[in-house]
């Protein structure tokens, strides 16, 4: 793996790409390119790419970190479930520190609530099997990347006759959010670096309506420095030539039609619903709910969940950051009140959150 990765982190190739980027992006205007995916955000900070790019190329972090865009009311519901004696929660670790209205799952766990951290939704099957007297609830957040694995796990649970495994779903779709940002217009986006992992599922064709209807260049990109810089160069080339197309830089993982098996799994079990994004608001047809015939998997159909009243955090500008309207350092709380150890907003929590990435990997001159 090391040798394979080294090719995508090659210093000389980086320099060549940067020279080409400088040549093709005249300094008389700025270029605002949005990386939608949190993993891109992390890589950009980790490798110090912002400092290497010319100053007139702005990389905006988009709403592609699932933990960051998960609504406050969802966290409160998860906390309400954790407080029930008949429930055992199973979750990805990222959600643990996300602040709810007055608590977090981490604080609940410290109080002795039963919450288990897993790396794959498949692990919930064993948890359900080992705890037959509990309702085991998997916190199903995430984009198209994680949704198929969750659904496959539930199909397996059905096949195994496990009747005590449920989901609390907040699954989200990427392209409706991208469309929303373009319709809104405030972020003045010149091009999208499209998420590589999500695209492996939905395919590069899924972005064509954005290029066609909203006249915006899109490039699907991988996550290594060379991938990201090449995607930037491809976007700048399109802008210079006045083209608006979907291009696929990440051909080693992404096909035009995506992963048809995974898409069929999603289509079989889920339907699009209007969904609320933390800090942004409701976006039409941007979430996935379970179809009626699979509503038995939904813990909300089994239990009445009574979360505490919503209490938003004053001063946090996560919503603006998620829309590319502000940078983490524009927030008054950033690195002062809000740190990864004591996060105020969700963007400081997740490993893929813009604020966490900016905090952990901020350049020396900032």
């Amino acid at each position, binding site marked *: *793996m*090391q040798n394979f*990765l080294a090719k995508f*982190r090659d*210093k000389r190739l*980086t320099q060549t790409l940067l020279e080409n980027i400088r040549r093709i992006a005249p300094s008389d205007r700025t270029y605002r390119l949005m990386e939608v995916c949190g993993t891109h955000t*992390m890589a950009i*900070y*980790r*490798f*110090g*790419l*912002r*400092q*290497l790019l010319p100053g007139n190329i702005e990389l905006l972090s988009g709403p592609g970190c699932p933990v960051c865009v998960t609504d406050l009311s969802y966290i409160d519901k998860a906390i309400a479930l954790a407080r029930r004696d008949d429930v055992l929660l199973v979750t990805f*670790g990222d959600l*643990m520190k996300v602040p709810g209205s007055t608590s977090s799952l981490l604080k609940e766990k410290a109080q002795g609530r039963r919450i288990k951290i897993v*790396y794959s939704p498949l692990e919930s099957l064993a948890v359900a099997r080992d705890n037959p007297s509990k309702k085991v609830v998997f916190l199903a957040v995430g984009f198209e990347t994680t949704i198929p694995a969750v659904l496959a796990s539930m199909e397996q649970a059905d096949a195994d006759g496990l009747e005590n495994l449920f989901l609390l779903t907040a699954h989200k779709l990427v392209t409706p959010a991208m469309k929303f940002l373009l319709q809104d217009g405030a972020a003045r986006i010149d091009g999208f670096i499209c998420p590589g992992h999500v695209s492996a599922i939905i395919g590069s064709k899924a972005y064509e309506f954005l290029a066609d209807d909203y006249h915006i260049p899109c490039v699907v990109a991988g996550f290594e*420095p060379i991938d990201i810089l090449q995607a930037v160069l491809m976007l700048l080339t399109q802008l210079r030539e006045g083209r608006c197309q979907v291009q696929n830089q990440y051909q080693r993982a992404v096909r035009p039609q995506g992963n048809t098996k995974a898409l069929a799994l999603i289509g079989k079990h889920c339907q699009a619903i209007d969904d609320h994004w933390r800090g942004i608001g409701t976006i039409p047809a941007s979430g996935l709910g379970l179809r009626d015939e699979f509503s038995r998997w939904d813990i909300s159909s089994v239990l009445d969940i009574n979360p505490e009243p919503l209490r938003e955090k004053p001063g946090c500008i996560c919503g603006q950051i998620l829309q590319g309207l502000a940078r983490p350092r524009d927030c008054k709380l950033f690195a002062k009140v809000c*740190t*990864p*150890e004591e996060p105020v907003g969700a963007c400081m929590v997740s*490993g893929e959150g813009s604020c966490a990435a900016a*905090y*952990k*990997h*901020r*350049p*020396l*001159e900032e």
Partner: protein
Amino acid sequence: MQTITLAHGAGGSKSRQLIEEVFLPRFTNIELLKLSDGAFLPLDSGPHVFTTDTHVIEPIFFSGGDIGKLAVCGTVNDLVVCGARPLWMSCGFILEEGFNISELERIADSMASAADAADVKIVTGDTKVVGPGQADKVYINTSALGQVIAGYQTKILQAADKLIVTGPVGQHGSAVFNDREKLLDNSNLISDCASLDWMLPIIDRFADSIKIMRDPTRGGLAVILNELIVGSSCGVEVIENALPVTAATQSLCELVGFDPFYLPCEGRAVIITAADGAEDLLAALRSCAAGRESAVIGSLLADARNRVSVATTLGGSRILPATAEFMLPRIC
């Protein structure tokens, strides 16, 4: 299979039996055999260092070691990086009722061999037993006393001082994480858990130029570097390219999103040394088998804000904050 019962901690004949059958045959030395309430120790003059560490790692047996080896090496290493030669050690066990005595024997075996290797004597100890579920298998506290090497003391840090690490970083964290989560079979992820006593002759020889040492355990290199420079007028710049990381650790980091700068080590030292003589010190470290992968990984620079930064491979820079990178409890 024989297991620990509450009677083993009650102070009666069962307690005595546990001590006589498990501990005494392994930790044999005159001070311990007296079985008094405390050990009587002859001290030489000069400064000594006293340290303590409690070990709660899960799993208790991991690739490259176990809680017993860790408990001895961890405390020995705290002394060594203070510039002290380990002399005497105490150990206290908290055992969960139902714990297998055969596993306790394995742990005591590795404590004995680690103590022998580091030339430290376990001269006093204690055992407590708690009910099932009130502790997880076994916890071990070790405390130790060591004598400071003549002429060694910590010194004021200055710009241009060199930063040395004595081997690849992050092996302990990645190995324990892999064992706990059962991620990769047959991986080369092996803890670096080992005693640093091999450094003592080198510390003695370079006592004038070594300025300060630490072992980068919890929080890894990033957190330890931040702690080291607090109160100085310096920052640290680490050269990413120069950092020794094994291919196995790097691969796990790529796979699960860890940063090797934040993964704990249990057999490495970080040394800040005067620039003058740093190359000789490096050569001396590398001439030892345990230190052959030592490297100069950066240097200090004038920075009143005490920032720790990395010069990235591609020519950028990033700050390494003193924040816990991820939640990995019970790593040591």
